[in-house]
């Protein structure tokens, strides 16, 4: 998997840095939740501002266990794919979907409650910015330069020393 866009080494390294930072964030969130059984997204989902019926359904007793596990699994998949540089485009898509769900539940729209968030936002918040950054990573994957993807590519012709 390669990028069609010509980038300087600095540009490519910047993308790699961005990939690692976002992967770090996702993996830490996922692992922390995995090892903290008391965590649940119930309150976040049930207090959703938009698409309330959908999020209320997701936060219902019958669904919340599945939703929480899926969330943890997805956070870790995104984190691992970005940090390891392997299937990072799939990871980016997963990450964008997760972040858009978080955004839709509590969008930074005028009039919507911003309780529980640090900083001040108008329409654009950190979830949306991180989703946009993942879109950039989706467009310009760097796993072939820095990550397991590069080993896969070269595995057909390993150099012997």
């Amino acid at each position: 998997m390669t990028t069609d866009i010509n980038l300087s080494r600095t540009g490519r390294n910047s993308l790699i840095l961005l990939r690692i930072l976002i992967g770090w964030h996702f993996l830490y969130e996922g692992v922390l939740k995995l090892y903290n059984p008391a965590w649940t997204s119930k309150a976040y989902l049930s207090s959703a501002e938009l698409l309330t019926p959908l999020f209320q359904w997701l936060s219902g007793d019958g669904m919340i266990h599945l939703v929480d596990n899926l969330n943890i699994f997805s956070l870790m998949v995104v984190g691992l794919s970005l940090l390891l540089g392997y299937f990072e485009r799939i990871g980016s898509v997963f990450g964008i979907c997760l972040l858009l769900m978080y955004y839709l539940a509590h969008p930074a729209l005028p009039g919507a409650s911003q309780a529980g968030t640090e900083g001040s936002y108008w329409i654009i918040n950190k979830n949306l910015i991180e989703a946009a950054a993942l879109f950039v990573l989706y467009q310009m994957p760097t796993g072939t330069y820095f990550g397991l993807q590069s080993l896969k590519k070269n595995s057909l012709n390993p150099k012997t020393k």
Partner: protein
Amino acid sequence: MSEDKSEDKRSNWSRRDLLKGIAGVPIVGSVWWAGASKGVNNTQARDSILKTLNINASPPPPSGPMAGDPIRIGIIGFGIRGPQLCRALGFGQKSWLESMAEAAKKNPKDTRLSSFLEQEHLNVHITAVCDLFDVRAQDAIDSFSTDVVKVQRFRTHQELVESDVVDAVIIATPDHWHAPIAIAALQAGKHVYVEKPMTHNIKETYALKDVVEASNVVFQVGHQHRQTQSFLTAQDVVKKNILGHVSLIQANTNRNDDNGAWQYPIHEKANPNTVDWKQFIGNAPMIPFNAEHFFRWRKWWAYGSGLSGDLMSHDYDRVNCILKMGIPSSVVASGGIYTHKDGRNVPDVMQVNMEFPDFSTGSSQVAGKEKGMTMVYSATLGNQYGRTTAFMGHDATMEVGNSLTIYADGKSTKFKEKIVSEEMDPNVPIYQYDPASGSVDGVTSATAKYFADKGLLWTYRDGKRVDSTHLHVREWLSCIRNGGTPSCNIKEGFEEAMTSHMGGLSYKLGRRIDWNQAKQEIVQVEGYDLDEALLEDKEKIV
């Protein structure tokens, strides 16, 4: 140039390629370790604290079965609280059902109608109503009559309680009618659910107590928060001496709207022809027909009980159901009419200090070092800043409302080691019970929010929101059907009523009012008949 060179290098593996290929692995390991350590530590700290506290937050078993013949209920007083109590029984007024359906349509988070419709069927019939305003009585008849049961209107409570169409009565009248109607109903052999405050003066408090104790029917006072899960959990917290010695309790009323200040709407059809004014007045001083007095009776001592009886009675019983500390040995009250100078003669700002010098919730220090407690009730009808109800102990502070939160005290003896080891942080709750964290409730007015925050509107059973009043009337009905004693019986009602009257008297006489525990009476104040002073239609006597 450099791009081309790097492309060449990637055609096969070099050590550098390998390092670049697996460089993410140690980062994954580090992040995983950090996340897992933090997660495990958090879980262990949480488990350790919960094990130390050992608080039981499980709901009680439901009161007994509702099987058997339907219990026939008579509603006496169908103004504001009466219809609410009918909903708790499973009967919604037509107008209420329509407005709730409309509200749910506009706001999907508004669950009032769905909660009502999901309420358990209590196997009761509303067979009779007595209200002194024709419009309201007719509303009850129109709303609750069915093909099987036609609601009968009785013009007087006496006729209703003596009729053979009711087994039990719910009394939701102005305060000055609570005791006379309850006594009449008990003497007629009818089970009684009476709203708070239980009585309007001292003499009738003894009279009602005597009649209840001599009867074999079931008596319940309407302090529905006794069914609220957080209050049941708080009882366990105190039982396990988690708070240590509680020296101070603060409870508050914070309201700032017309409804909260008892400025209720006056019905346009109310006039001397549609309201039985003479009967409304009862033992109060006779005055010409006055629609404001009829609809906003809480604003006058002649019919209501002011902040001390109307709202402090809630707060006192909220604390008494947790601590069972009984009647204070003395009460000092102050305040005034500072925010609603509209002709009322009950205060709208009031502070009541209640002393319990011989009471203790327990101790973690040297035996005998701690004893005695003050409860401060502070109220204003001119500001709704959300002051919480706090039980302030040597080892911890507990905030109780619909949720319950406990903070360790920085100088606690019991939790000293855990605080030093930083396992407990005095700024972070060591325990939190928040039944609403998993759901959203429709709270549509400032006054409704005030009651909800205090745990007076609803509670939770098995994750579902349930009207506390529904559980409270259910408990009463269960005792009627299956035997047993309701949680707010005559002992609790007597304590609530006497404490409220002490608060009102202290305010009106401008002096400390003492309770004689041995004689079970309020100590006389020279020169005054206490009941006359309490009921006198003046803001203050001294």
